[in-house]
């Protein structure tokens, strides 16, 4: 079997990150929105985990929770996020103060973010180089090393070269708005890599750019993983990107994990009706043209009106009476694969 990503030898290395039963709620005037409702997954060193889902499924909130960046009125209601640092110590990130020095030392240096909109992430009034140099000097200071500005500049130029930015000596002094979309995203990746993080969180990193540029950025990320053994959490709604980039996939819908498992099983033996429907509804470069695509009936409900029972039941072709009243638990359905569906087990959430 040929896999896009060579599978990671499982259970040889302990997980870098363990998310356990994470719940994030937003208390609003209209009621409490459960944006993430019991998500669990592990990320091992060098592994690429994909989180896929449609808008409002909680994929971005999960990522913000890991970085302790959930904005008010959102808060982590329960669950643990265990991170194993360079010394092998396990830290529960949910116990750290979001603004405290420990969390700041982890953000950027240990876990870095590649945001969706590099245009919004870079300041337009400073050169991209100066922003990366600042980050390098700041994190060096935190870990007690002294580094001069000239040294940081050299490191930045090296990073630009690594991510494939041509004439880095000149580009380092440009402003983000002077760069094209692809170059801007490369500069963002260089910034994310500047402190040699062990975990990269890529939040829809290619959604705002064109396909040919996307292909370049995906190739770059694959190469970086090979070179530095960086683990990546890849958040996207694009199933093509998931198939080509990840080795393990978490499928979310309205804050809940519907199914998770190794990428090959998710695409070739999906167990949850939502995963199956999602895979069927995408037009491909191979299928019949100008015929009706199989659709998922209905539309995504508003987070305030989350259906009782299984959140997918009103749109599910295989819904049973029980699905409307009880919420299925995520349980193993195969090798390393789990699904939350009564078609596969009887267990309901208390």
């Amino acid at each position: 079997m040929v896999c896009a990503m060579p599978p990671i030898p499982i259970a040889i290395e302990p997980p870098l990150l363990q998310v356990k039963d994470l719940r994030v709620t937003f208390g609003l005037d209209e009621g409490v929105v459960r944006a993430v409702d019991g998500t669990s997954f592990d990320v091992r060193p060098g592994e690429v985990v994909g989180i896929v889902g449609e808008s409002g499924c909680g994929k971005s909130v999960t990522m913000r929770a890991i970085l302790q960046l959930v904005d008010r009125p959102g808060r982590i209601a329960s669950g643990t996020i265990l991170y194993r640092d360079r010394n092998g110590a396990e830290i529960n990130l949910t116990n750290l103060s979001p603004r405290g020095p420990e969390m700041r030392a982890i953000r950027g240096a240990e876990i870095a973010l590649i945001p969706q909109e590099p245009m919004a992430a870079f300041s337009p009034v400073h050169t991209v180089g100066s922003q990366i140099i600042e980050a390098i000097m700041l994190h060096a200071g935190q870990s007690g090393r002294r580094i001069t500005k000239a040294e940081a500049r050299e490191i930045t130029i090296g990073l630009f070269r690594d991510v494939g930015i041509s004439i880095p000596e000149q580009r380092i002094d440009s402003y983000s708005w002077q760069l094209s979309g692809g170059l801007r995203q490369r500069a963002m990746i260089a910034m994310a890599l500047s402190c040699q993080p062990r975990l990269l969180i890529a939040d829809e990193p290619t959604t705002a750019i064109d396909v040919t540029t996307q292909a370049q950025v995906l190739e770059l990320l694959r190469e970086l993983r090979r070179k530095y053994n960086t683990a990546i959490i890849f958040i996207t709604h694009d199933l093509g990107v998931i198939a080509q980039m990840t080795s393990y996939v978490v499928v979310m819908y309205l804050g809940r994990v519907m199914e998770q498992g190794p990428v090959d099983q998710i695409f070739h033996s999906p167990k949850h009706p939502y995963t199956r429907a999602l895979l069927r509804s995408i037009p491909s470069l191979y299928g019949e043209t100008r015929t009706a695509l199989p659709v998922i009936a209905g539309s995504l409900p508003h987070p305030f009106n989350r259906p009782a029972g299984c959140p997918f039941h009103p749109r599910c072709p295989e819904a049973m009476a029980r699905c409307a009243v009880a919420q299925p638990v995520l349980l193993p359905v195969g090798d390393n694969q789990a699904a939350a569906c009564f078609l596969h087990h009887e267990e309901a959430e208390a």
Partner: protein
Amino acid sequence: MSEVPLFDAPLLQVRGLQKFFPIAKGFMQRVTGHVRAVDGVDFTLNEGETLGLVGESGCGKTTASRCILRAIDPTGGQVLYRTRDGRVVDLASLPQRELAPFRAEIQMIFQDPFGSLNPRMTLLDNVGEPLLVGGMRSRSERTDRVAELLKLVGLRPEFMHRFPHAFSGGQRQRIGIARALSTNPRLVVADEPVSALDVSVQAQVLNLLLELQERLKLTFLFVAHDLSVVRHISDRVAVMYVGQLVEVAPTASLFSRPRHPYTAALMRAVPVPDPRVPPADGALRGEVPSPANPPSGCYFHPRCRFAQAKCATETPPLREVAPGHMTRCHFADELTLAGA
């Protein structure tokens, strides 16, 4: 693939369409150059067919479609439109006053279902506005027509007294489609109509467009960047690069055997939703050149794997290399490019 009915004249014939935007510099705002956003585009659109117009951002696909609608005035070229009574008029040169009757016949569906509806107007007013502009003064007549249109796009007529904020992205896109259809158009220009929608909703809207086309004998110009979507909905596909068409062909022919290296590169760049298919290597290098300062010769030559000396000096013409298959490449006959 549906059969394209043959007519004596196509519904729309675009010839040498150009749109240049001036670049002004300095205190005096002197014009120092032009962005050649659309630089000599030719294509035809037969009645009842869907032509997909694809390309990356900045290639001029949206500008070209806006010129056809006369939302902006083209710099040059002709947009020949065959009217219901068989006359052929050039929309590109018609004064605004004389355009009015054609505004109803050529309609548009927009990309952003959140920005394209007036949030302060109910669906009745949003969808009914083109009718009012078209002279339907009676409110009860408009109400009946809007009810009919909402049903046509799969929404409940009772919704007409609600405001757009009450609807999801997919529903809003249906509202936008209802509005475009209110004037019984013959040609609908859809600019990225599904790219802002979630995957599960995207399929619903694509199906609706196919169904409406069949029922109302609509002609679509479908502008999009997503090759899989364009392939799914189009009878023929036109590929744009830096303001020019590089390839126009029937969908099956284009995807099974692309004749332009850029088209082939675009196809290779689409990630295949199957983990057993290894990632395509050899991603296209470099950047899309600026339309203000395009390269010499073939605009694609600096990024082309097959470029030869001739490509940097001579501009290739758009020529037919197989039945209905046009390409702008000197070496189309020698190259064997892999399709999808």
